């Protein structure tokens, strides 16, 4: 029997109005990859933050080895041999890899010695990384490697990884898993946080499942079906979206020779993108974030203007029009960043509804806002899209991620757009909300609209899309019919190669 590395006993933590963790107990053995599973808001992050010393439990205790363990800050946790790779990287784009790693160290060695160390560690764990490269030029997968190597340099006993695969391509996931297995072989433990069931079944030895802040079960993932684990996570069985058979009609939107120079220094410029989407069609655009997705959405939403003929909506050239003008013509978009882009954080839901409403019943010709009508509109979004909020006057920032996303998507879909473009529709959203959002996208497509879904989540694209292309480094692949693609094909496309398939959807 392997020895116990970390033991949690009755950990509880509450915030005003919420019990984030209640009486959670489990053990992590040495040399074990332990999955911590749960929907968003289940309490996973709070729990690991307590292990990593970012927060302290209200009650309960932890034992590391045989000693009591209660880190008051992350540096204490690191000294005890606990390291963490966050979902959102804390790296500086304008510094190189070695400099970034040195910044996070308490007593950094000379940069040359450190570079050498980085190279040694990166080689021995199969994580190729050049210490002299600027972080701004690295892909998301490479950035994650920087974070992992930063942790490995501390020679930790327990490595915590928060949703590590959410930003990776299938090939990068394979590399990551090899590294994790190597670490396991060395006797290190890994606490692996995720809601992706398949990958947990692939590499984890044991899983603890949280729901609403409580531990609801544990299992050996390899011997438990994904369906069963999913039901434990959600607490009920939910149906996957139903797709009716849709026939494709006329071409609704056509994009030709779209090239955009990114305004952001570390952004990705778009090069010569051509495609079209038909009535009833859902086009999925895969690819890892940072390959031009934001720029792509901006060009379609109207935040970036192009020459008129670049974008044609139903025979009308609209490349030069602003976002509100495009909305009037029936082209609507939902950007990825919910707070600050799709919604104004400190403004109420009613005011956020106003963001993309410009019709006469909402704002008259004198510019006077009709708050009664806009409130009615808002309450329709809230009720039809199941947005859980105490009142319509609550600020966007006070909503949970999933609820705000339902609001943002509902706001656009209820206006019945002819073409709807959405970037990462279910990013950071719990499973039930994600299923709901996907279903509403499918419903929209069956009501004579065309939809473009940009997503990193390939499962999602496979679930709802009809046609598929990949955005890599600002270039878009040809469009393929999704039914003819295997996940290996997709991996190849994401690597930038073209497929030799004759089942080309649109010629």
């Amino acid at each position, binding site marked *: 029997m392997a020895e116990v590395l970390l033991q949690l006993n009755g950990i509880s933590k509450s915030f005003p109005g919420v019990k984030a963790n209640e009486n959670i107990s489990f053990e992590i053995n040495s040399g074990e990859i332990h999955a911590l599973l749960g929907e968003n808001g289940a309490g996973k992050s709070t729990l690991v933050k307590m292990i990593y010393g970012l927060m302290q439990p209200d009650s309960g205790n932890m034992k590391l080895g045989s000693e009591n363990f209660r880190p008051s800050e992350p540096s204490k946790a690191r000294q005890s041999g606990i390291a963490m790779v966050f979902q959102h990287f804390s790296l500086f784009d304008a510094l190189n890899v070695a400099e970034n790693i040195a910044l996070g160290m308490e007593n950094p060695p000379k940069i040359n010695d450190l570079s050498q160390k980085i190279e040694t560690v990166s080689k021995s764990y199969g994580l190729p990384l050049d210490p002299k490269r600027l972080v701004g030029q690295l892909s998301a997968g490479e950035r994650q490697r920087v974070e992992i190597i930063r942790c490995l340099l501390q020679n930790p006993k327990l490595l915590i990884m928060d949703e590590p695969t959410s930003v990776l391509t299938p090939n990068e996931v394979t590399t990551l898993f090899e590294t994790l297995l190597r670490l396991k072989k060395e006797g290190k433990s890994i606490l692996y946080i995720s809601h992706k069931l398949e990958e947990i079944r692939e590499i984890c030895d044991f899983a603890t499942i949280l729901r609403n802040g409580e531990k609801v079960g544990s299992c050996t993932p390899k011997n438990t079906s994904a369906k069963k684990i999913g039901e434990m996570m959600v607490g009920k069985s939910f149906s996957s979206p139903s797709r009716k058979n849709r026939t494709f009609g006329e071409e609704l939107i056509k994009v030709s020779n779209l090239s955009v120079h990114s305004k952001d220094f570390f952004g990705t410029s778009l090069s010569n993108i051509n495609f079209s989407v038909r009535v009833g069609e859902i086009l999925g655009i895969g690819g890892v974030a940072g390959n031009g997705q934001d720029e792509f959405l901006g060009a379609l939403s109207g935040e970036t203007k192009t020459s008129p003929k670049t974008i044609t909506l139903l025979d009308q050239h609209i490349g030069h029009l602003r976002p*509100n003008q495009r909305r009037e013509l029936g082209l609507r978009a939902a950007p990825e960043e919910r707070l600050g*882009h799709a919604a*104004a*954080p400190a403004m109420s839901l009613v005011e956020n509804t106003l963001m993309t409403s410009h019709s006469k019943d909402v704002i008259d010709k004198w510019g006077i806002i009709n708050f009664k009508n806009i409130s009615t509109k808002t309450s329709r979004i809230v009720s039809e899209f199941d947005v859980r909020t105490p009142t319509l006057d609550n600020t966007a920032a006070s909503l949970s991620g999933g609820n705000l996303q339902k609001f943002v998507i509902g706001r656009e879909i209820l206006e019945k757009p002819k073409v709807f473009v959405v970037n990462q529709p279910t990013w950071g959203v719990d499973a039930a909300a994600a299923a709901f959002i996907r279903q509403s996208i499918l419903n929209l497509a069956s009501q004579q609209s065309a939809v473009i879904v940009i997503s990193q989540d390939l499962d999602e694209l496979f679930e709802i899309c009809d046609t598929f292309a990949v955005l890599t480094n600002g270039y878009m692949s040809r469009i393929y019919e999704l039914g003819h693609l295997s996940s290996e094909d997709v991996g190849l496309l994401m690597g930038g190669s073209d497929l030799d398939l004759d089942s080309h959807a649109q010629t």
Partner: protein
Amino acid sequence: MIAMLRLEKRRNVSRAWAVTTPLIAVFLTMLFGGIMFGLLLDEFASAFSAIKLIFWDPLFDESFASYARPQLLVKAGPIILIAIGLSIGFKAGIWNIGAEGQYILGAIFGASVALSFYPQESIFIFPIMVLAGAVGGFIWGLIPALLKVYFKTNEILVSLMLVYVAENILASVSQGLLRNPDGMGFPGSRNFKDYPSAFNEEIIINSGMHWGVITAFISVILAYFLFLKHQKGYEIRISGEAPKAAYFAGINPSKTIIFCLGTSGLLAGMAGLFEVAGPAGQITISFNSGYGFTAIIVAFLGRLNPIGILLAGLLMALTYIGGEIAQLMLGLPGASIQLLQGMLLFFLLATDIFTNYRLKFRSL
């Protein structure tokens, strides 16, 4: 167990605190201002009377009120008018620091128009002056706006530097172009008190109420309506709140910049005109008295809310007048009054934190 105080972010902004913090800030200012005066005067008994002289006597003491009460509106009028304009830009995250310059230009434009009609009498002269004052301030506000839109310059720097340009123009015209030809060579224009058609007279005798004060009150109402009900007010707020979201909504940032700087310039220009045509009476080298800068403090003291600005403007005017009285009666140094005004802003900002955060005890 060690108990520790900790700030915790509120999920929703507390309305109750938003209203009470200014009152607490005023109270703390009185308390610490009193201590300061006590130390200055070496006698704590007179500390109370200093505070009473500043905050109470200008309004309610018989010997001061007849002079001080009208002065309250005379001083508060331009400050409120300018601060309302500034608050519009501040809400959008556009920082016009140069209202003082726009105020000067408004005065020069309006005065020039009046002097060019001199000595004709007509009821149209005063309205034309007001218009000219508005145009003067508008143009001066438009300069940083256009430079920002076309060359991405920083409006804080440009508007501030234009204050110094305006001051030099003021010095130049009061010694040259606009100098009173009958003034025996002294710098300064004709006095509008002697030119009835151009004079901004008190509407009610001994009330301090002149057209500028009326305009200030109207601007409060219009600004209140703008942010409550109007699309433009909404666009301004969202531009300040989340610029990216505003752009996504289809709001043109250039138009917002021009509107905000233009409007605040326009109101400051009008304030300058009403001042030169009324209380000041003439263009002089030292015509401007810092209202444009005081208005920045008032805009924040009033939390960029029109009603708040109205009250803050009155309070600030009170400390000016009361301060003068206290200097006169107790021989307090002028700097101590400025210190008192600084305290007011300091305490307001310090207590402000409780509207967004709550204090919590935590045991370690």
